[in-house]
């Protein structure tokens, strides 16, 4: 029942821009294939073509020996090809059950069979380990839960070929583990799986073979057992990527406390959180999804209601009622949701980049030239890969959007910068760039707070890591306590 797929010289152009330059390779049935490539390499585009969401500009798609042209995703689904999108593809106003069956509603006569849909939805939610009422509106879910709904939606389609485009980018370790168990079951049932991720350890552990794309071209394929993480990274980037993390610089004891927070409470999320961070220090925040890390900082920055006993910036007590107060005090918070909160997808890159500093740079009219110059500089400095600097942010690949968002927030020249999941969905090369940037920011004397679900990242970067669980600070771990085991133990309350 598995599907065999062959890409024959697939070309894809968006207007004048060619993003796939004739891709040739085959997917053998019944295997788990990891698809690797830098941000913007064309992985998502190729898979959208396979699943019928995009039409190729040239080349053929051969499935089980027959050439196919899909008019829509429905045609691909009829053959059992199902794609879990990298971007959420859910109607926010509808419930989970409605989303899962959107376009495939079960009916009894003319009317919807809501009971059956609810029941089946519950079953699929259970399979992906999401314990939420299927009648919940998707708008009321958090990012990770939406991701699980996306997976449940794919399960409801009875896939023979399942494509997962970075499904774990926003999942915590526990949920990720459940997902891999699910993948193993599907594989045992004979489902072919294409798995896209920038988490190379997952690639190593859960794929049978890897295929590497670079700049819209097929580079190589290899059995997973024959390549290690290092080799995968090098194949993707096309050059040697080693030493992801630089050595940590010492924070001198007399360094000023840049931010001190005491008794921060965000109703419903966080209780009595205390922490401080010094100039030049990198402070990590660890915790499971739902631990309240994001909410803590959204509260701190005036993005949701909060109380705090005391907030000090550089020793001075301050009040923060709105994000602008925070900005004026030299604080910056880069959200984990870069599409919904980080970037104006329909505005140009230069507009996005300069959005927070317009007032500072205006004299009194906008500095349009300066904005363009700043964009050129940011493109070079942050290694943003793009084809047309006049395009809107939507046209950038995910990793490049992240770099642009970082550049945007850094233009405010913050004293304390909070990065929420800064490397989510970012390729290894870019990850390394971002890590180097974080080091540089600290070296410049800024305080950096990194919220991350990737423990390796926290261990490699941070001087100290705060662990949150259920909205409370569970531990503050110093340099000598930073191991994956301790972090997990504190995050899951199995530390005794």
């Amino acid at each position, binding site marked *: 029942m598995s599907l065999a797929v062959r890409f024959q010289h697939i070309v894809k152009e968006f207007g004048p821009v060619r993003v796939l330059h004739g891709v040739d390779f085959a997917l053998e049935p019944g295997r788990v294939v990891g698809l690797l490539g830098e941000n913007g390499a064309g992985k998502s585009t190729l898979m959208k073509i396979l699943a019928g969401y995009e039409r190729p500009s040239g080349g053929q798609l051969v499935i089980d020996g027959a050439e196919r042209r899909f008019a*829509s995703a429905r045609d691909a689904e009829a053959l059992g090809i199902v794609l879990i999108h990298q971007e959420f*593809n859910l109607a*926010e106003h509808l419930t989970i059950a*409605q989303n899962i069956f*959107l376009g495939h509603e079960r*009916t009894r006569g003319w009317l*919807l069979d809501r009971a059956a849909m609810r029941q089946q939805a519950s079953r699929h939610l259970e399979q992906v380990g999401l314990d939420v009422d299927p009648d*919940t509106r998707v708008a009321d879910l958090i990012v990770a839960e939406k991701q699980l709904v996306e997976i449940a939606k794919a399960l409801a389609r009875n896939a023979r070929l399942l494509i997962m485009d970075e499904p774990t980018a926003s999942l915590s370790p526990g949920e990720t583990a459940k997902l891999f168990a699910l993948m193993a079951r599907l594989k045992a049932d004979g489902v072919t799986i294409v798995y896209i991720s920038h988490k190379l350890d997952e690639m190593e552990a859960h794929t049978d073979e890897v295929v590497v794309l670079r700049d819209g071209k097929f580079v190589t394929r290899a059995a997973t057992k024959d390549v290690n993480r290092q080799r995968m990274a090098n194949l993707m980037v096309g050059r040697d990527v080693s030493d992801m993390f630089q050595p940590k610089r010492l924070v001198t004891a007399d360094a000023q406390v840049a931010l001190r927070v005491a008794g921060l409470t965000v109703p419903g999320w966080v209780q009595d959180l205390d922490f401080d961070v010094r100039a030049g220090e990198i402070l990590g925040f660890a915790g499971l999804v739902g631990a309240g890390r994001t909410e803590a900082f959204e509260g701190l920055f005036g993005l949701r209601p909060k109380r705090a006993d005391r907030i000090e910036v550089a020793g001075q007590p301050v009040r923060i009622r709105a994000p602008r107060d925070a900005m004026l005090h030299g604080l910056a918070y880069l959200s984990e949701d870069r599409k*919904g909160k980080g970037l104006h997808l329909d505005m140009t890159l230069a507009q996005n980049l300069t959005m927070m500093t317009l007032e500072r740079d205006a004299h009194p009219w906008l500095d349009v030239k300066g904005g363009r110059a700043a964009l050129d500089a940011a493109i070079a400095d942050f290694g943003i890969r793009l084809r047309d600097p006049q395009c809107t942010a939507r046209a950038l690949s995910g990793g490049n959007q992240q770099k642009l968002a970082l550049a945007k927030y850094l233009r405010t020249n913050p004293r304390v910068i909070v990065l929420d999941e800064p490397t989510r969905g970012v390729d290894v090369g870019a990850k390394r760039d971002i890590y180097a940037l974080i080091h540089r920011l600290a070296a410049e004397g800024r305080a950096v707070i990194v919220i991350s679900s990737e423990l390796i990242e926290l261990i490699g970067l941070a001087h100290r890591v705060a662990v949150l669980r259920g909205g409370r600070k569970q531990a503050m771990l110093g340099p000598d306590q930073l191991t994956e085991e301790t972090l997990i133990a504190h995050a899951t309350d199995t530390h005794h």
Partner: protein
Amino acid sequence: MQPTPTTKPLTPAAWPAVARLLTHTKGLGPVIALVLLCVAGALMNPDFATFDNLMNVLTRTAFIGIIAVGMTFVIVSGGIDLSVGSMAALIAGVMIVAMNALATGANAPSALAIVVLGIALALAFGAAFGIAHGFLVTHGRIEPFIVTLGTLGIFRAVLTWLSDGGALTLDFNLSETYGPVYYQSVLGVPIPVWVFALVAVAGAVILNRTPFGQHVQAIGSNEQVARYAAIRVDRVKMLTYLLLGVCVAVATILYVPRLGSATPTTGILWELEAIAAVVVGGTSLKGGAGRIMGTVVGAILLSVIGNLLNLTSIISVYLNAAVQGVVIITVAYLQRGRR
């Protein structure tokens, strides 16, 4: 993009139940406002609370209410229709002209047959106008606001031209036959109220219990997602306008026997009333979600305000519109928690 909710209960066991309760109370804003208004009305004037007055109010709500039910679909799908008032007027005009013409022929059909033909004609025109709107919006890719602003002028101009600027009046004999459609009661309840109830129930079922209704909501919520789910977006949008066109026709079919005439002022500002009913009822103009029952309550609420103002003389007549404005804003304020 929907903003993430600001608060959320932490206990996993409790929250679905609470959430469901909230979903149900959320829609109560207009209902509470309506109840308050009715209590106030009954206190101010005992005649307000009589069955006859209630039926009068419901009967006159029927036109706008039926149109508003159709409008709910269009708005939920992310569209809008400004032309409904002139569309109703033009359909009324066409109906009257056609029926009169049929009645004057040498071997004219029976009055009943003519009325039935007239009704069929009205439905056909409503459907055709709806399809035209849908076509311009989907294939022409023109904003619905502009399309229907344009047809608003066109429909009314054609009616004015048909009627030479005066009134088109239904033949007296036909009026006699047709009149009961508006004036008759069944089980004590006037026919327009029955029809209104029927349309409302049908609308609610279609919106919430059929795949089409789901698709309408999905398109309004996120058109891209709907496209990805292989929903025939253009077809569904077209159908929402068609549905609205038919609702306008049904409203007109009830309207014509009331006064038996159409003039260039027929239906003026009905679009604003219908849209206001929809929005007061809790449907967002941004699309994505809506409640037919909210719309029905909204339409009744707006009628009741007018009725109360007529039944009392506390306020200067000049200020009637101000009272309506204040009530509309207040009701919207009461239910603003949602969004």
